[in-house]
């Protein structure tokens, strides 16, 4: 699954698309996603894919998206084969295979251009309880810290003679115990310290905290919103009014 996760990891960028209001990016991805599901012919899907590529170009992530497409593409070869085997319908098999690629790309475009900070803003717009949002924020915030912790503990245990990659699968899982226990203990200690620091900085004292960042709809925000709605309108039109092209 590592290859797939690569298509979803945020990397800092400075394109117009990166600087959009995160809610606009979310709306765009949701509408692109819905559009891929609604179109019913390969040609129409091609239109959606052209739109996706255009977005990727604006976001200057063409290379990463191409990589994601290639990797999901190899997987969708199976989708195509299985479909074709059962339906003997070339058009719908191609459609399903390509649709999978388009779905992954439309979702990934949101995640690779939206920083965890912006994700938090999005969660706030959905009026999620502050504690839930904060739990998410800290969880993501401490991923790199915990990874570093794990490496250090592994090194420490290896230097004391722990052989991590010996034996069969069960043996290897059991070998991880001396790594996991200190990791859990560390995390518990850390959470205690975090709680003290939060308390000292007045977490939760007012029901409605203010926020440093504020998004104002820019021209780019409006343009992307309009483009996404247009794409979706076309896809919806095709879904309700255009009959799928039938191959003989």
């Amino acid at each position: 699954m590592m290859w797939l996760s690569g298509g979803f990891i945020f990397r800092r960028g400075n394109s117009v698309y990166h600087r959009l209001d995160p809610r606009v990016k979310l709306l765009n991805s949701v509408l692109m996603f819905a559009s891929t599901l609604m179109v019913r012919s390969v040609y129409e899907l091609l239109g959606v894919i052209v739109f996706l590529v255009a977005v990727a170009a604006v976001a200057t992530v063409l290379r990463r998206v191409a990589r994601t497409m290639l990797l999901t593409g190899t997987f969708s070869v199976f989708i195509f084969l299985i479909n074709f085997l059962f339906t003997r319908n070339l058009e719908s098999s191609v459609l399903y295979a390509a649709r999978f690629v388009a779905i992954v790309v439309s979702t990934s475009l949101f995640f690779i251009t939206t920083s965890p900070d912006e994700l938090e803003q999005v969660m706030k717009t959905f009026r999620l309880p502050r504690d839930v949002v904060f739990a998410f924020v800290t969880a993501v915030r401490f991923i790199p810290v915990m990874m570093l912790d794990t490496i250090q503990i592994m090194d420490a245990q290896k230097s004391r003679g722990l052989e991590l990659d010996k034996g069969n699968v069960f043996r290897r899982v059991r070998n991880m115990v001396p790594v996991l226990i200190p990791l859990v203990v560390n995390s518990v200690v850390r959470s205690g310290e975090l709680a003290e620091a939060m308390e000292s900085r007045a977490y939760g004292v007012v029901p409605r905290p203010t926020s440093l960042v504020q998004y104002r709809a820019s021209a780019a925000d409006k343009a992307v919103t309009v483009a996404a709605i247009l794409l979706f309108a076309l896809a919806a039109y095709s879904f309700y009014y255009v009959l799928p092209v039938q191959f003989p």
Partner: protein
Amino acid sequence: MSDILEIRGLSFRYPEAPRMAVSGFDLAIPEGEIVVLAGPSGCGKSTLLRAVNGLIPHMYGGEYSGDVLVAGASVKGSDMRELAQKVGFLFQNPENQIFMFSVERDVAFGLENIGTPREEMRERVDDALRLLGIGDLALRAPHELSDGQKQRVALAGVLAMRPRLVILDEPTSLLDPKTAGELVDLVAKLRRELGTTFVIVEHRLDLLVRVADRLVVMSEGRKVMEGAPKDVLLGEGSEKYGVATPAVTRLQKMLARDGLATADGLMRPADLAALSEKRAR
């Protein structure tokens, strides 16, 4: 000058703990002083600090007697909203007090929590970043910072609340000597420019004695020594409580033993020259 912090006969015991963590502690600190608190591990320093910023008794319950007054108001009677703005607390590990993904958002964390209006928050965050010389890091993520930088970010978050009293819990323990020295300079600068009072728990006294006004030594929950750093360190007993004597103090003591210095101060080069001349004759 009035006292920013006044501790009157404070005693505290954690629930289920066999003995008092702090007992009968008295201390008064005038505004603008830099006070260093030293003593062996487990002597009650952390407990005392928690009692000053209100974690005790607001977060930790236990047996509490005596009183702690910050700027004249009892900690027990104040809520965390008031306290967070009066007392800033820099914890030992900066990693565990940075919550947000970008430096400026983290510096704003406390201000967001107390509901500061956006314009004022922007101003205070920028001020704090400028004060600590980390304006260029504003948009970095925590994992892109060095330990020294993290320390500054955490301190910026504390200072953005504009507290009159700042507590630093072993602020140099994770820093290399150069960065540690810079932090001490920073403390001196903040006191000079903002008039902030500092209470610093620290083992590396070498660095701090040059800026500290007072040294308080704790042992087993009690205050055992208090005074100007020079007096405490040159006097008898500071070693007994595990206070790491700065090299310069040891030198001073050795020189005094050999009659090359007076007990309360080093000789100036001129004095030394006069003395060696006398001896030569």
